Structure formats: structure tokens, C-alpha cells
């Protein structure tokens, strides 16, 4: 199933990329030139990709020599082409995988247009879940999937085949202060998620959480 076209105006994000390499004035002028020639409306959309590809080089050529244009062109085209992946899976075997997982989560969220705070929350949820797997189960995985909706959501699923969480209901009721801190993490995730579920038993644990992008 192809995701519906997200009619996002890419102008702001293209401008941000340009401003990393050009003065504010030059960046604005490049963007304006690209928009005038590439877009049929006042905005830049993913469907304008072919035109953006045609216009970005010439627009930059007024300001930069060819070798300096290349990285900017690549970055702008990556933006216009849209996110290349809508789901990732990170295996959690040891502590350092927790780091990998949350960085990947932040990246995926950002690729799909999440603001810094939403990306931070998603990465934090992943960190909590991955740490629980590494600390208590030893072996599992975290999967992130972008749901097209609408509304667009980030779905986070953490699975392991560890010993399971005893007294899940008690922990989630908030009345029990777990000695291990596991409870705080799960309660925190639930507080931030619009959908949340935990299924845990002797065969392992599965936590699902979803948040709007």
C-alpha cells in the first residue's frame, strides 16, 4: 500500500538546508528562484521533485562553485524525494544497542517531518524499551513503523522472549513503586502515547506504543 501524498510545503525544510551552507539572503534567493521555476503553486511539494532536480543546480551556480554545490543538491533532493524508509528494526542484545536504537528512532522520526520535541519523545520511548530488553530480557528487538493514517503516527513495538514482567497490571496501575525502575519507564511511555499496550508472560513481553507525528 503506497502512503498517501503528504501535501507538506517543503520550503521551510529546503531553506534550512540552504542556510547551513549559504548566508540567509543567498539561501532565500536560491529558494525563491527554485520555487519560481519548479513549482506550480506558492509551495514546494514532493511532486515537484523532477523540477526541483532540474532547477537546484542552476540556482546554486550563482553562489557556489560546482564542488560546493554537490552536497547541497544531494541534501535538497533527499528532502524532495521524501523519506526512503517507513520502518526500521533494531536488534537489542547488549547495552550499546540501546544507543543505536534511540539514534535510529530520532532519525526516522525527523525524516518523516517530526519536530524536535516529538522526535525526542519517540527516541526516549525507544530508549526506555530497549533498556528494559537489554537489562531484563537480554535479547529482543525494537521496531518502528510510520503509519500513514491520517493521522500520521509512529508505532513503536518492543518484543523480547525474556522471563516476562511480573504484576504488569499492578505496575501499570501506578500504585506500585517497582524496585527496579521498570514501572516508571512504562508509566512514562504510557503517559506520552496515544495508544499503549503491554502483553507479558513467561514466553516474553511485547510492548506497543503509538504517538502522532
Amino acid at each position, binding site marked *: 500500500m503506497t502512503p498517501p501524498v503528504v501535501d507538506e510545503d517543503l520550503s521551510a525544510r529546503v531553506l534550512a538546508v540552504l542556510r547551513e551552507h549559504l548566508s540567509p539572503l543567498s539561501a532565500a534567493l536560491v529558494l525563491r528562484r527554485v520555487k519560481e521555476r519548479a513549482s506550480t503553486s506558492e509551495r514546494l511539494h514532493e511532486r515537484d521533485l523532477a523540477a526541483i532536480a532540474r532547477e537546484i543546480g542552476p540556482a546554486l551556480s550563482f553562489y557556489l562553485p560546482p564542488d560546493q554545490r554537490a552536497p547541497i543538491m544531494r541534501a535538497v533532493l533527499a528532502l524532495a524525494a521524501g523519506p526512503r524508509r517507513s520502518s526500521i528494526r533494531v536488534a537489542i542484545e547488549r547495552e550499546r544497542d*540501546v*544507543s543505536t536504537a534511540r539514534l535510529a528512532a530520532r532519525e526516522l522520526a525527523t525524516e518523516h517531518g517530526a519536530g524536535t520535541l516529538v522526535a*525526542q*519523545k519517540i527516541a*526516549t520511548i525507544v530508549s*526506555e524499551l530497549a533498556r528494559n530488553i537489554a537489562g531484563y530480557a537480554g535479547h529482543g528487538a525494537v521496531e518502528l513503523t510510520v503509519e500513514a493514517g491520517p493521522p500520521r503516527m509512529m508505532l513503536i513495538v518492543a518484543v523480547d522472549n525474556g522471563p516476562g514482567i511480573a504484576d504488569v497490571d499492578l505496575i501499570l496501575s501506578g500504585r506500585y513503586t517497582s524496585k527496579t525502575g521498570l514501572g516508571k519507564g512504562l*508509566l*512514562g*511511555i504510557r*503517559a506520552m502515547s496515544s495508544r499503549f499496550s503491554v502483553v507479558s508472560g513467561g514466553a516474553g513481553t511485547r510492548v506497543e506504543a503509538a504517538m502522532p507525528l
Partner: protein
Amino acid sequence: MTDEETRIPIIKLWDCLLVPLQGDINDRQADMLTVDVLRRIQTQDARGMLLDVSGVWLMDSHLCAVLARLAAVAQLMGARTIISGMKPEIVLTLQAMGVGFERTETSLNLEDALQRLGISVVRHSDAGDDDVVAEALAALGVTNPERAHES
């Protein structure tokens, strides 16, 4: 990486200890840090510890618990801990999760934390100028310039 390479540095700052944290802290590093901090508090008679987290981009409930434990242990040795430099995204996320530092002080930045530990800045214009002033006052027989005009 050896333990030495990943050991978190502790910097003496007058009678305080400055601990700059970067990235994430694994359990091994946390244990080593705790031992190092306790030893340094004792040998330097430190009365304050600044945990600076401005180099940390994500704090989850586990890291908060690690830092809170570190602060509790330092307090047992009479040292006050202030956590400084939490990024806005971290603060907002912890708040949304209902996770926080109930018993550990936090501050916006290092300057604020130092001030709260009783350390303030007096900026001198030039080392040479201070000497001139000191000599002149001594020659004039003024020991306390603040009170020179009191009768």
C-alpha cells in the same frame, strides 16, 4: 575500549567537583563514576558536585535514576549536587513522562549552579592594576576600602 578510555572525567573547581557528562552512561561507567566521586569528595574535601548534562541529548528514567543515586551518595558524604544544562527537549519529555528529580537540585547552566554553591565571579581588569591599587591603598594606610569613609 578500556575502562581508562571511557572513564568519565571529574574536574576540581575550587571546593567543588565538575562532572561533564556526554552521550549516554552505561552501567559500568556509572559504577566507576560513583567510586571516583566518593574518593574525590573525601580527598579534596569537596562540598559541591556539578553534574553538567549539556552534552547529553537524551535522558530517560534509567539515566535519571543513575544521576539521582549518584547525588544521594554524594550527599551522604556531605556534598551538595546540582544538575545543570538540561536541554529544553529533555525537560519537556521528562515532564510529559512524569519522571523528574524530586530530591536533586537542577539549574539552567553552570554559572547558575556555581552561584548557588556560593561561588561568584569578580572580574579584575588586569593583574598589574590590582597590584597598583593594593600598593597605593597600603601606602595610604587603608586596610578596608569598603569602610574607608566611615568615621
